[in-house]
């Protein structure tokens, strides 16, 4: 494992334990300095990356159990996907001069899709990223969630043969409301929160 791979993995494991970005920056800087003066490899100096991340997180007052998946990012991605889906449905219904209808089959597939994404896709993506890649957890997880949710929502009625309409609303109202939701749910995706920063000497 190269120094870069070790440190990339360390960042992921510290993030999963909710260590703030500023603290992570300081921990990385100190670790890099240690390697520079000792001539050791990261594994020699600090041991297995997950164990080291756990010990550092506990020393900073964080819990010793990592999140198996980043809940906040999942919620943001889900809200973003749901608002896009609603907007597309509303635009199509508006063009056809129909109201937006939510069927039981759609509801079932959305709930199953969310369950699958939360319990299977996201933990798998996070585990993959922690072992193989240094960055991109939110993007990978979001894409995975969107792909699965799009698939199941698109096939929802047909999968469950359940076309019973649960909700019906005027398309223009839903279009405007969902457009607001699309914009609002983009804000957390665009805004850079809690970056890893080098300490100032």
């Amino acid at each position, binding site marked *: 494992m190269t120094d870069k791979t070790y440190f990339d993995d360390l960042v992921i494991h510290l993030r999963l334990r909710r260590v703030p970005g500023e603290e992570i920056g*300081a*921990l990385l*800087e*100190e*670790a*890099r*300095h*240690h390697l*520079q*003066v*000792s001539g*050791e490899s990261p594994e*020699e*100096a*600090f*041991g297995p990356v997950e*164990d*080291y991340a756990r*010990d*550092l997180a*506990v*020393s*900073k*007052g964080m819990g010793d159990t990592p999140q198996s998946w980043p809940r906040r990012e999942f919620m943001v991605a889900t809200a973003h996907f749901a608002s896009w889906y609603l907007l597309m449905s509303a635009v199509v219904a508006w063009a056809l001069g129909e109201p937006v209808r939510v069927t039981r089959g759609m509801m079932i597939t959305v709930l199953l899709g969310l369950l699958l994404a939360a319990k299977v896709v996201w933990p798998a993506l996070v585990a993959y990223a922690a072992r193989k890649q240094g960055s991109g957890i939110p993007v990978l997880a979001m894409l995975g969630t969107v792909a699965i949710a799009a698939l199941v929502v698109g096939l929802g009625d047909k999968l469950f043969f359940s076309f019973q309409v649960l909700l019906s609303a005027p398309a223009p109202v839903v279009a405007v409301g969902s457009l607001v939701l699309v914009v609002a749910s983009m804000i957390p995706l665009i805004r850079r929160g809690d970056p890893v920063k*080098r*300490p*100032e*000497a």
Partner: protein
Amino acid sequence: MNQRRDPQWLRGVLPLCILSVLTEGEQYGYDLSRKLEDAGLGSIKGGTLYPVLGRIESDGLVAVRWESGAGGPSRKYYRLTDDGRSFLANGGNEWLEFNDTAARLLRAAVAEVGR
């Protein structure tokens, strides 16, 4: 010192040992590990040292400052705070008393089984 010593022994006393070394003045992490090794505690790896330093920093027993490195990573220096000195004085005495008690017990037992 025996390098096969139980690591749990060191874990309990390492914060006090670090604070003891810091009575000599401010140090950075690797320097501390060398001085602890020179004192006979054996090799203290970064994976053991830095979490302890993080804890005593969070507890306010040490203060830190960063010094930029010449083209490399910055150094983080640790120095004792007043709270750290009090902790060292109180905790050090408690540890010495405990150590004396354990040593008395062990000496008697080791002598007994060694006969």
